[in-house]
């Protein structure tokens, strides 16, 4: 059977499972819709959190990024896992004890202020919308490559699936579909990794295969890749090219941002007890770590395979996958020295258009390659590869069976859909609970609020779909912005709310507002060229916009503490709330599933 047939079969099967689960676990009350009734077991919540967290970016994008950046890619590995330690130790147990539905709930009650609540709602919406756009795009990408439908049709199919189970099931439906999606995505990620690890090193465990020697050669795989990289003019794979301070700050921003993301935090409201919240953070990281320790192995395998397959090979002799990816415009070749072979070297092969190729319609060159009109003649590199395709192309590059390739497509969809659903829930809850119930219409009935929640989920899906079809030019930049914003706003406000009893509303609001504004300013200046723009040399302390969330977070902490010293202490009953959330027992009702 062809890859396409297999993909249709596997994708249809998995979608049927997701829909079946959604029908079985419909939400009947707002408590079920917002936090699954608070009765999810720690293990199920750990699985769901892992799927919720691991997005199209983790599944499709990360291994590719590491593949092209080597050691520098470590920022994603440490940044996106280390945040769970902060979450487990500093946030999850206390927020569970607090026992409400959302992050703005905590901010609003702890800082006894609707202004604080509104600032938090604004941040939650901003973070979630920037993030969800990338997920819908990921869905479209998988559909267009493997089912050969138009990328927009792919986005619309994805919208309907998410709409169905998020609107029907709320958090309860999402939780159990995410459990299924985790199983699909981890299986899909591990199978090709294990196959390729055996192929290249003879070791079935990719984490160990990465550090083993190459079959039939007396050389370690990593040493071989270091050699190949330097031979072609790239930096040595195991040594990066970013500055140490930037690596440090990006890692910190990603860790703190992870711990501050509302769709991750809210998952810990769904378990029955405080001790379950702690345990389920442990499970979540364990399940995430399986993928995150395999990803760097895949990066090494894929990079080595790619170089060995294409370097100095005649275009005519290249395998089928090369031409298929050329059709999607994510891969391109320009025969600069007119020898009919691919020279893959350091430097950008094309210029302008953000270093992406511009194709001359469907025109073909003399070897049958697609013609690119923006060649960069200053470099000798002839190959453009979009890092996003590495995970999807990897099984094809390694010549694995068709069903494995189809499985990877289904895994990518599971990763994108599970994250999109979690984000949509945060968006709809922010509107129906934090805005309508808590501010605009406090006497709304539970039934009315449930309807409002479902309607806002529908609206959110439509907006997310629109972003998927018309992606903002800088998807990657906006996702980095989401982390920066979460780090600069929520994280300090929540930490201080728990660990510093005297923190008051004036301090927290000033900290959040200044943190966000500073982050937005830096991002716009260096990513969007506003406020006079600037180049790498103008970065403050040599810190990139991706790492600036750490600075904005520190500023938030400092501003909050200074302001709180000069303004009245919080009222007695708020200080009692803080005392109370520090003690783990009697965490409030949960319901059986």
């Amino acid at each position, binding site marked *: 059977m062809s890859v396409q047939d297999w993909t249709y079969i596997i994708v249809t099967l998995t979608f049927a499972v997701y829909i079946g689960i959604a029908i079985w676990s419909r939400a009947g009350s707002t408590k079920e819709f917002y936090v699954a009734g608070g009765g999810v077991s720690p293990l199920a919540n750990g699985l769901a959190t892992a799927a919720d967290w691991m997005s199209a970016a983790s599944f499709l994008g990360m291994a590719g990024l590491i593949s092209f950046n080597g050691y520098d890619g470590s920022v994603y590995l440490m940044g996106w896992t280390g945040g769970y330690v902060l979450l487990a*130790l500093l946030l999850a147990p206390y927020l569970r004890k607090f026992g409400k539905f959302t992050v703005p709930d905590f901010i609003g009650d702890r800082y006894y202020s609707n202004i604080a609540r509104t600032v938090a709602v604004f941040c939650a919406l901003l973070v979630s919308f920037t993030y969800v756009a990338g997920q819908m795009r990921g869905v479209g990408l998988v559909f267009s490559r493997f089912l050969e439908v138009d990328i927009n049709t792919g986005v619309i199919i994805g919208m309907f699936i998410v709409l169905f189970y998020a609107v029907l099931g709320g958090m309860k439906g999402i939780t159990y579909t995410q459990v299924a999606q985790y199983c699909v995505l981890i299986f899909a990620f591990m199978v090709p990794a294990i196959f390729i690890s055996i192929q290249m090193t003879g070791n079935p465990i990719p984490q160990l295969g990465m550090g083993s020697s190459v079959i039939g050669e007396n050389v370690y795989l990593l040493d071989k890749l270091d050699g190949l990289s330097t031979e072609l003019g790239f930096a040595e794979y195991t040594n990066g090219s970013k500055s140490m301070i930037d690596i440090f700050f990006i*890692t910190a921003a990603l860790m703190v941002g992870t711990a501050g993301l509302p769709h991750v935090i809210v998952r810990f409201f769904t378990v029955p007890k405080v001790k379950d919240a702690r345990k389920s953070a442990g499970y979540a990281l364990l399940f995430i770590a399986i993928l995150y320790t395999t990803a760097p192995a895949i990066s090494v395998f894929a990079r080595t395979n790619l170089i060995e397959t294409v370097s100095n090979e005649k275009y005519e002799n290249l395998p089928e996958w090369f031409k298929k990816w050329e059709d999607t415009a994510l891969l391109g070749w320009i025969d600069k020295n007119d020898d009919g072979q691919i020279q893959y070297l350091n430097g950008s092969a094309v210029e302008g258009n953000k270093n992406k190729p511009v194709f001359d319609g469907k025109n073909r060159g003399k070897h049958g390659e697609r013609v690119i009109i923006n060649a960069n003649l200053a470099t000798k590199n002839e190959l453009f590869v979009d890092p996003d395709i590495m995970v999807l192309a990897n099984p094809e590059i390694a010549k694995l069976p068709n069903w494995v390739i189809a499985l990877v497509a289904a895994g990518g969809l599971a990763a994108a859909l599970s994250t999109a659903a979690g984000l949509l829930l945060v968006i709809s809850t922010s509107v129906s609970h934090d805005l309508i119930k808590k501010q605009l219409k406090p006497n709304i009935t539970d039934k009315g609020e449930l309807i409002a929640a479902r309607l806002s989920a529908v609206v959110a899906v439509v907006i997310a779909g629109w972003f998927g079809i018309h992606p903002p030019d800088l998807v990657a930049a906006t996702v980095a912005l989401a982390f920066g914003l979460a780090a600069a706003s929520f994280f300090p406000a929540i930490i201080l709310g728990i660990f510093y009893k005297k923190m008051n509303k004036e301090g927290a609001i000033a900290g959040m507002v200044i943190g966000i504004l500073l982050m937005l300013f830096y991002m716009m200046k260096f990513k969007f060229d506003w406020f006079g723009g600037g180049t790498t040399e103008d970065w403050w302390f040599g810190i990139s916009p991706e790492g600036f969330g750490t600075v904005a977070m520190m500023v938030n902490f400092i501003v909050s503490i200074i302001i709180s010293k000069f303004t009245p202490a919080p009222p007695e009953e708020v200080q009692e709330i803080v005392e109370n959330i520090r003690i*783990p027992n009697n965490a409030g009702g949960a319901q059986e599933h």
Partner: protein
Amino acid sequence: MSLQKHQKYWKENLKYLAILLSIWFLVSYVFGILLVDQLNTIRIGGFKLGFWFAQQGSIYVFVILIFIYVRLMNKLDKKYGYND
């Protein structure tokens, strides 16, 4: 009396946090970033040690840290009668 108990519990909790977060910082920021070049001179099989901490080791330690925290806190809750 009860308030004193609360404060003692909270102090012990903070002590655990300080120890565990120091280890968290050590394996990622110190071993994986600040001392990476020094550690890279040591090799374990095909891995340079600093590179291994940055891409593998730190993640394993993170997982272990959370489960140690869970154990410690469960014991602490029991000691103070806060388990339910």
